[in-house]
């Protein structure tokens, strides 16, 4: 099964429609197409990060400056942001995160399992609202719902895009 990221174009349109002006990311194969759309768009400021926690801080700043943002990362990156979520929580910053999952459906790499299996509970332990999409057709409306929760209800929200959506990783590709 090849990587399926046909949902990326719709998600990009949803982010644009939600007024997202800053997109920060640490790359993941599942986000490749969405990241490329953001890079090609001259209205979205895209910021590649050295580590995901930079993105949590950046998007706090985006909101402080009057803009909206989104953070794209792989589930392993969730482990890197936990303490920084304290800032978003205390300041009640909206925080929209789109997380592509590893370490679950059909994972071949055992090193991905610990964080992948702990991703949802870890986020929830820090007060993040977690929405999951496990079919490609569910991804866009889940992101739209998360954007509403984040920007209008002012909450930290993560969309976990299941590994089943992305497909098995094919290193030959």
């Amino acid at each position, binding site marked *: 099964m090849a990587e399926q990221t046909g949902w990326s174009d719709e998600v990009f349109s949803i982010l644009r429609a939600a007024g997202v002006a800053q997109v920060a990311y640490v790359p993941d194969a599942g986000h490749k197409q969405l990241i490329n759309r953001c890079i090609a768009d001259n209205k979205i400021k895209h910021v*590649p990060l050295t580590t995901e*926690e930079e993105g949590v801080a*950046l998007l706090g*700043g985006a*909101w*402080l*400056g*009057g803009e909206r943002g989104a953070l794209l990362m792989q589930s392993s990156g969730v482990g890197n942001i936990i303490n920084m979520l*304290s800032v978003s929580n205390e300041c*009640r910053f909206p925080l929209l995160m789109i997380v592509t999952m590893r370490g679950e459906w059909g994972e071949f790499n055992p090193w991905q399992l610990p964080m992948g299996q702990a991703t949802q509970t870890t986020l929830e332990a820090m007060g993040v609202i977690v929405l999951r999409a496990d079919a490609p057709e569910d991804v866009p409306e889940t992101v739209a719902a998360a954007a509403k929760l984040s920007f209008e209800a002012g909450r930290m929200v993560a969309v976990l895009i299941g590994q089943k959506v992305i497909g098995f990783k094919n290193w030959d590709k």
Partner: protein
Amino acid sequence: MTEYTLERRDVVHRILKERGDAAVVTGIGNASHDVASAGDDPLNMYLFGVMGGAVMTAFGIALAQPDRRVMVITGDGELLAGIGSLATVGVEKPKNLSIVVIDNQAYGATGGQLTHTAAGVDLVGIAAASGIPRTALIEDESVLESAIKDIYQGEGPYFAVVKVVAVAAPRVHVPNDGTLTARRFRQAVSGKVG
């Protein structure tokens, strides 16, 4: 270890005296007290939790408010905890961002344990090697006044380390309700409420 003579609170007060309408983000620790002791301001965002987030928070503000100077005032320990953010700033080169590190070479809030800068880790060198085009090392009075001008003038990103004497300054009241200070700040810089 070199003995420095500049005093952190005096340095921060002199920097802030020239701030105009600059937005200021403070790093957790003494830097927040230094800034608050100069007088509270809606354009101050005091971070009171998590080491390593001050530069990126200010960067996000700088992207959203490209016509306003955004300044970070933080400590060496706080910056070291998010040292990769200098690489990210060096790549993106936000023109309106200035970073000022008050370097006492110690974790002042936890008992004065030495930070890596005490052993010679060169923050100015890291910033320059990360692609931050304008940097300064301020070790004494002779270059402080010209550096204060550079913080606010010229194209960013600008990065300065001010070496200060490792003596704690008195604690002051710093507004520590993040929900309140964040909304006050956002309204002051962007006019947006809620």
